[in-house]
């Protein structure tokens, strides 16, 4: 088996203070992921996962299941309430990335992770040129050569099929599918070993979805990047992920090879999900 590039241990994210009833970690104290006594929402409870080199790990679940929260915590968009995450690039994997300072976190964001958001507004500067959007991550990583950054940005935008004559345009002028492709190019700009993909095809037309998925597949094949792929759509996960994790109410309810989960779902929720796909 390949080596592990990202290890998440007992990740937790709570919105609210918690109370004696819910803070013990007993899932039966909650209604779904919500404590009726104090109103605290347990968006993530005890989520652990390993991501292997050049693997695509799918995370499926309904909206509110916590799957996007996992990515938000890893990309430091949200501060987790508990748990740890390890990558080889930070202190040889001996210390959790959540213990890092603001500067370390930025380093990890800029060098280790690339992220594609469901909503391109969060991932792009809509009024800056597409080239500048790609360059932003390289600038943040310390690159100070315009020619080199422009070339790299053109290469990446070509890769995601943005026509040459539109590269100086701002993503605000682009269609949803094009914006998503610019985001993917941006996420790839520093050759990150790990890509975080959050519902990258949600809200796109079917034909556009297919193109974006093809692109992700192609990138994965060519660059052997490890990917955490979040989707509510089992079809997307089936097409891309080697292994899959199923989440419900902030917890992992099932995990395994994607094929195995599709053939023989164990958890009632997964069964429901799989049957609805057929």
């Amino acid at each position, binding site marked *: 088996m390949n080596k592990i590039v990202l290890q998440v241990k007992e990740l937790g994210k709570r919105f609210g203070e918690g109370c004696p009833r819910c803070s013990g970690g007993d899932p039966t104290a909650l*209604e779904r992921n919500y404590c009726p006594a104090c*109103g605290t929402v347990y968006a993530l409870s005890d989520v652990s996962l390993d991501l292997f080199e050049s693997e695509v790990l799918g995370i499926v679940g309904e909206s509110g299941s916590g799957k996007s929260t996992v990515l938000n915590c890893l990309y430091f968009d949200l501060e987790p309430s508990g748990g740890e995450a390890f990558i080889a690039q930070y202190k040889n994997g001996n210390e959790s990335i959540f213990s890092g300072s603001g500067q370390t976190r930025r380093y990890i964001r800029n060098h280790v992770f690339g992220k594609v958001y469901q909503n391109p507004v969060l991932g792009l500067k809509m009024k800056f040129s597409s080239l500048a959007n790609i360059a932003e991550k390289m600038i943040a990583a310390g690159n100070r050569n315009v020619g080199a950054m422009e070339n790299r940005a053109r290469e990446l935008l070509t890769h995601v099929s943005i026509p040459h004559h539109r590269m100086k345009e701002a993503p605000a002028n682009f269609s949803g599918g094009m914006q998503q492709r610019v985001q993917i190019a941006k996420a790839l700009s520093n050759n990150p070993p790990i890509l975080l993909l959050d519902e990258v095809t949600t809200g796109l037309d079917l034909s556009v979805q297919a193109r974006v998925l093809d692109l992700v597949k192609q990138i994965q094949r060519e660059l052997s990047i490890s990917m955490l792929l979040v989707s509510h759509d089992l079809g997307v996960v089936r097409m891309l992920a080697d292994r899959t994790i199923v989440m419900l109410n902030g917890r992992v309810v099932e995990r395994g090879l994607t094929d195995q989960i599709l053939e023989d779902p164990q958890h009632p929720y997964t069964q429901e999900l799989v049957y609805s796909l057929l």
Partner: protein
Amino acid sequence: MGYVAIKGGTAAIEASIARLAYERTKGGTVLDVDRVLGGMRALIDQVMSESSLYSEEVAAICIKQAEGSPEEAVFTMRAFRSTLPRKHYSNVVESDSMRVERRISATFKDIPGGQILGASYDYVHRLVDFAMSEETDQSATEWLTAWHDATSGTPSATASAEPGRLPKVLDYLRDRGLMKRVEVDHTEPKDVTKEALSFPTSRSERLQVLTRGQTGTVTSLGYASLRGYGPLLHPTVAELRVGYLPITIADPFVDEADGTDDEDAYYIGEVKVTEVESVVPVAAPRGEGRSEIEFDIGYGICLGQNETKAIAMSLLDQCLQHPDPAFPTHDEEFVLLHIDSVEATGFISHLKLPHYVTFQSNLDSVRRSRNSKQASLADRDVDLPPAPGGGV
């Protein structure tokens, strides 16, 4: 070639200043400061409030000097305030010790202690009173005498209520559990005129900035929050009071550590203020998935009688206690950094200053970018607005 002197500036400026003095005096009559004090109570109150300096006399001089421009008068008064040594902070004033002249509530028809209308423009018709042009000191005195005669024996006409006699409307709501209970907070407030704001701010800092805000800006932003730039919760004025608050300072010769009590305090005078307590219904979680509606309070207080401003301030205070990036009125940086008269008028008016150097520098960039555009037009020439940045 002889010695060359730079010429122009100083002489022209002196002439402009003289011209300004001419404009104020050219009619051959000048305003008596006493008359400003006597007849411009509203403007004096507005200027004192925006200046955050309580002195009717200095305000009157500034108003005269500024030919009645509140912008200029506030500016002058603030600059004067900067030079005053600040030797004491007053003791905490409990506002129920107010000598009330006016007091209204929109929450209940009958409030304990009753509604006191006092003096207000709320009940007059805004018809031009052409008799004003005929009014003389003598006719005014006659009216006064007649009024005194007619009202003698009815103390309510001039005298105000005894301090401490009027219960607060909010206390009524509190006693019935309808208001959030808050702990009394004795944290020493930061003085925003001595320490720069840093965000996020404390409530005491926000209240200080709001109370010295430009009347029109406070009103407009409060209006915006009420009209829909906010979560549309209709506030109600629980109580609006206008009256005098006694100000005391601690005995400077008693060591604070030994404990000071009110007996040792020095009474240094009273200030007229407008105080508003608004109530806004909000949802409060009560556990077991339930919420209850309870009342949140918005607080406004201004030097002088400035009722619209004080109400608007109470709305903004409540808005800023619930930050929400979706609404500028709930964004403390947006509200607090743009509400000050001296800052806003100063930066706008600085656009009149010469900008030859920066403009010449911009010109250089424009010329160069023209040249380089002509040199290479490899890419489709997209029509883009100019990049942000550049000199001010």
